[in-house]
Structures are given as C-alpha cells and as structure tokens.
C-alpha cells in the first residue's frame, strides 16, 4: 500500500513567535505582540492536533487493509 498523502498545510514550517521591536515599549505594543504570538501558538496547536488526527485516522485505514 502506498504511503498516504499528507495535507499540504501540515507540511508548512511553523512560524516563530515575534519579539517586541526595540522602538515599541508601550503596554499596548506588548499586548498586541502577545495577541499575535498567541494567535501563532493556536495555529501551531491546531496543526499539531491535525497531525495527531491524521496519524490516527491513517493508522485505522491502514489496519483495515490487513
């Protein structure tokens, strides 16, 4: 049985968290930066969960062939 395909989205490299630029030192800058970084975290989390789902579902499909 050929190796199963992986959704293209899951093969994209994970984004890094962004540091706070040196000229941005107000509280709103920090919250904005945190907001963006949390967004990045949740995107990576959703892809991580998708990888788990992909593995479990493909395993089930593979085992049904045996």
């Amino acid at each position: 049985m050929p190796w199963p395909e992986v959704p293209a989205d899951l093969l994209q490299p994970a984004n890094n968290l962004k540091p706070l630029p040196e000229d941005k030192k107000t509280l709103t800058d920090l919250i904005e930066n945190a907001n963006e970084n949390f967004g990045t975290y949740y995107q990576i989390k959703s892809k991580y969960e998708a990888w788990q789902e992909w593995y479990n579902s493909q395993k089930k499909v593979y085992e049904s062939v045996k």
Partner: protein
Amino acid sequence: MWFLLSFIPDWFINYFVHIIFGVGVVGIIVGAFLSKVPFVSQYGFLIKIVSNILFVVGLFLEGGLQTELAWREKVADLQKKIEIAQQQSKETNAKIEQKVAEKVKNIKDNVNANRQIIEENRVVINAECKLSDTAWLLYNGASQNAVAGSASRPTATGK
C-alpha cells in the same frame, strides 16, 4: 516461468485444465471398454496408457489451478481493499484540511478582533504604564525561548 500464468486469462486456464482432466477420465473409461472388445483391444490398451497419463497430469493441474485461482482471488480482494483505503485516506485528508483551515481562520479572526479592541483602547491602556527596558528584554527572552540576563544586567541570548 510460473509468473507467465498471470498473463493468461482465468477462463482459458480453467477450460484447458478441465479438458485435460476430462479427456483423461473419459479415456480411462473408453480404454477399459475397448480393451475388452475383440480386434480393437490393442488400441484400448494404448488409450488406457495415454488416458492415465492425461488423468494424472490433469489432476496435478487441477490442484495447481485451484491454488492459482485462490491466490488470484486473494490479490483481487487485497487490491479492492487498497483502493477503498486510498479513497478513505483521501477523504480523511480533505476533512482534516478543511478543519485546519476553519480553525486557522477562526484564530486569525480572533487575533484581528483583539487587535482592533487594543487599538480602540490604546490611550487608556498606555495612560498609566510604560515598559521598562528590563521588562522588554525579559518579555522578548521569554517569547524567543531564550534566557534574558539578570534584571540589573539584562542580555537576551536568544537565537
């Protein structure tokens, strides 16, 4: 040599083997009958020998044929299963892709909504607070998974 059999259609092999076996069986009966008939009994003996050979070869081929057909059936079953599995795999991938796309969209929407609220409250939020250099360094150290130096001598060492 045997792999060549896989190129021959099932029905042809089936007929071929059944005919050899059938001719062998009929030949044995005919041979037994003819060997008792005067004048042709010498042919009956010959037919008996040839028929016995055909019978044995036919029997062997029947066994081989059943094995061959059983394997072909197994291969066909497995191929069908693989096709179904490939289809299921594709459907699963499509579902996962859709789910990820929806989640990412929701996350981006939430980030944008929060950004807008922060922007609306910029003045109020910044009115009583400004980040010190140390706080800035510590924050960046944490977000980059690097250790910032001590509060008195902060040095971010992230990559």
